[in-house]
């Protein structure tokens, strides 16, 4: 091999590595199918064959759209549109020819991310009986449970607050798909990096929640209404989920 060739290959390798790094930096927040490990591992093994996408009976998997570099063409999910349904036999993993999606003993071992509830937006936190995410969860009472507590200043209503189990949530995203709140954003999301997710959950717990503010267009006297303990309306001028 000539020196010039060595230099060329070496330069190519450097550029390639930089591209991979760039891809990791930009795509590590993207959700990956069950069985994927960290983004570097996944990207190094995924050959973009599309077999996991074909294998998904729910059409939950699709290719990444706006990634650059080697992340382009890899499988991902938009859980708001179609969440992973945690198939018992995990056909996506079975279809993967390279081990980019690693075999798991049980669907409970899937770790696509961790759900984080935005407590400012969650209407269950405001004592409306919602808890859609809780009832939708394939691992109800394991990955998510209800914390029952009194509603402040109200003797006859309790808050049924959904709480994520940080160890058991698989990040399948069915809670995100089903959430009834999407204004200004969905009240629950999947964060892929579990450590980051745990930090966010801790911050949510510490939040001092604002009183449920009434929308600007409310016609009666809002102060009077709140004093009487009303929960406030949904502003129908905003689009619903």
């Amino acid at each position, binding site marked *: 091999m000539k020196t010039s060739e060595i230099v060329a290959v070496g330069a190519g390798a450097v550029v390639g590595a930089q591209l991979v790094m760039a891809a990791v930096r930009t795509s590590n927040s993207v959700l990956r199918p069950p069985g994927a490990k960290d983004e570097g591992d996944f990207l190094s093994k995924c050959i*973009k*064959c*599309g077999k996991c996408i*074909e294998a998904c009976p729910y*059409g939950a*998997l*699709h*290719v*990444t*759209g*706006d990634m650059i570099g*080697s992340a*382009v*063409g890899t*499988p991902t999910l938009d859980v708001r*549109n*179609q969440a992973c349904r945690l*198939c*018992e036999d995990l056909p996506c993993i079975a279809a993967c020819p390279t081990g980019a999606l690693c075999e798991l003993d049980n669907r409970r071992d899937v770790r696509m991310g961790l759900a984080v509830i935005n407590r400012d937006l969650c*209407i269950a936190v405001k*004592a*409306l*009986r*919602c*808890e*859609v995410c809780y*009832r*939708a*969860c*394939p691992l*109800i009472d394991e990955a998510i449970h*209800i914390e*029952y507590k*009194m*509603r402040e200043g109200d003797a*006859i*209503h*309790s808050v049924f607050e959904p709480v994520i189990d940080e160890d058991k949530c698989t990040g399948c995203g069915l809670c995100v798909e*089903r959430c*009834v709140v999407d204004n200004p954003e969905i009240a629950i999301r999947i964060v892929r990096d579990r450590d980051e997710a745990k930090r966010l959950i801790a911050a949510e717990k510490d939040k001092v929640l604002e009183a449920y503010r*009434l*929308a600007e*267009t*409310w*016609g*009666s006297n809002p102060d009077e*209404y709140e004093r*009487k*303990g*009303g*929960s*406030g*309306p*949904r*502003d*129908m*001028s905003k*689009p*619903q*989920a």
Partner: protein
Amino acid sequence: MEITRRSFVKSAAIAAAMAAAGGSLAALSGCAQAPEKETGTEGAGTRTGTTANVPDEPEVVVTSSVCRYCGCGCGVLVSVKDGKIIQVAGDPENRSNRGLNCIKGYYLGDLLYGKDRLTKPLIREDASTKGTDEGLREATWDEALDLVASKLREAWKADKSRIAFWGSGQQPITEGYLTSKFWKAGLLSNNIDPNARMCMASAVVGFMNVFQTDEPAGCYDDLDNADLFITWGANMAEAHPMLYSRLTAHKLQDESVRHIDITTMKTRTSASADTVMIFKPGTDLAIANCVANYLIENDKYDHQFVEDHLQFKMGAENIGNAYEDTYDKSEDGARSGDTTPSTFEEYAERLSEYTIDYVSELSGVSKEDLTMLCEAFADPELKIMSLWTMGVNQHNRGTWMNHNLHNLHLISGKYGKPGCTAFSLTGQPSACGTAREVGTFSHRLPADLVVNNESHRRFTEAIWDLPEGYLDEIASPGFHTIKIFREMSKGNIDFLWSAHNNWAQSLPNLTRFLGRDGEHMGIFDTFITVNEVYPTITTKYADVVFPVALWVEREGQYGNAERRTTVFQKAVEPMGDAKWDVWVLMQVAKRVLKDETIDGEDAFEHLFGFIWDTKEDTFKGNDREINRAIWEEYRIFSNPQMKEAAAAINESAGLHMEAKQLAPYDEYIEQHGITWPVREVDGKWLATKWRFTDGPQEEGYDEVGIEMYGKHGLANNMSFYKSAGQKPSVVFRPYEPPAEIPDEEYPFYFCTGRLLEHWHTGSMTRRVDALNRALPEALLYMNEADCKSLDIKDGEKVRLVTRHGSVEIKATTSARVAPPQGIVYAPFFAEETLINLAVEDYYCPLSKETDYKKTCAKIEKL
């Protein structure tokens, strides 16, 4: 659809892979997006354009109202701007919910603005198109009204046993009252029944048999006072969300408060209960008797309460099941409601077989749990509130189970003190207010009156200005619900009119009733008229569809489970050409009753002249004035002093009609709902929260009623002044098995019900995008072990087959509803998963309410 989507995904994947291998990035854009879901967020109303920063902002008008959906009856406030609802919020001044709602209430305003609202009358020319999406064409109101009226008149004149009206516990009170008046006094037909028959009838017959007056004596405030809650076959956490919030709040405030969930399967209600007792279907009868037996055997019943208040009876036994259409007239059917006077000792004797050992063996509930339950009732200090709904009512012995619960609470004296009551929850917003209080049943007249009682007919005639004896023609009850539809399926009903229900989805045994069995094809011959707001399976079978006002598009009133009557004010105009049901009723009535007379006067004028101007062919006032006028006539039934002739019969026949006294109409609006009986004290109309319990009226006790008719100083300060001999009846009811028992061929019990996100058949909640997103499909909830043994994976489609029909449905092992082995569960909200094709139509012989909970089934892997 699925293939298309998957092949799209596949090609997108390939395109992306190629692009990654060296294609340009631009080539990717647009082809690698996530497949779009059809969420339909474009519905009007979901984006009602509140134009920000417009200088001449139109005024926002707020009216008080009540939720359209369930029997909790939560008050709401509706904000309207520019003729459109812009907000709905909990009403803090409604004493049933005090300002909070569930998600159905949160999204309540969106219900009006689904994309496919019916806004034009529709006519079907060709009956063979029934059951399809085709065949209905738009028509004018006159054309549709003339057609319906001519068909009804023709059928009525020919044979009035061949017409029927199927109403609803969602019909507002004044509408139900007028419909009943038209059908019973105008057409002299008792073939009118509500969907509440399939929901509350067992509770009604239970209350009537035990107390001779319908509806619970307690109220929602009992939830704030009990020491022990017992849910019997009730998934309150999902079906009564805000009441469950209240129950939970009470538990949270006092650690000693407990909740026992007695159920056939683990539900979201079980999830927060302290003890869950899973029993084998049907054995709840024995469990209640077991406790009663324990109390008597151990001398731990309430002697004073028994002495002061109770009489004992034996009921007919071995009454079979309504397998055949001829059941009602069979020997078993005819005697099924019989009772004979008895003694406490005889009652005790019959109970004695229900030992803890025997009942534990029969029910599958452990002896320890049964003992704990017995001991709870034995504790004289413990305040116990029993709550039940469909598990008890939709039961082949539903009336019996209602009896057994009352029996238990009565002999233990757990009745009438705040926190101590046997409380039957309701499923519909006005099952109580309309179906039960107005009495839109085949055997009833308004206000607890029945057709086969002479003085009840005289009293009704007095109020309706009918000649004495006029209603004798309807002295025999008409067809109850299943009878109507069984007869229709055989071609014996010529005209059916339904309103505020969706029977082609909600009835059991749809394989038969929709003619899917190829044998019962009557539905194609019956002329079917449907009042509706959205297309449903029922409108697919309609010959004429009347588009009607939805919820606050007119004024109406609902009566909830705690006897609270609440007005929902008119807030917006009906959509398109939709009309108020009362307008439709008047238009049909005046056509059908043309040239008929009552007492020498035009019949229509005689019955409805008080609200309808025949010359001008219009109402004699606006929505408020018409509702008030109807209410004030209806109110005479419970305020007989308003009319001399009525007062005289009330007095002479000892009817005690004031037991259900209602207030003047405007009081309900001012007070944001009131629980009856409502008493006028010093010029103020005061609610009664605890019926038959003595105490200050101002605090919600039944002081005025007891002063009027009852006695002071009896056990628990109660006086059952409406009961025969002022003594409720404890009727012995044994355990008898379900109508179908699992066998080798059909090894599962199939149970059906409701889940929080959707209400009933989903005809309204599925038009609300957020709710449809929250729960888009109906699943069959199965036990994991059953799935394993049948090799069914979570999410796989299966065929559920019963003796009555079959349905394909996806199975799930998600524990939202977690049945034990041998039981499967599915909700009935999804019309594309028509589970009622497979549900039995065997009914409780006393209440004629069918058992939606225990059809035997097999599950086939597809």
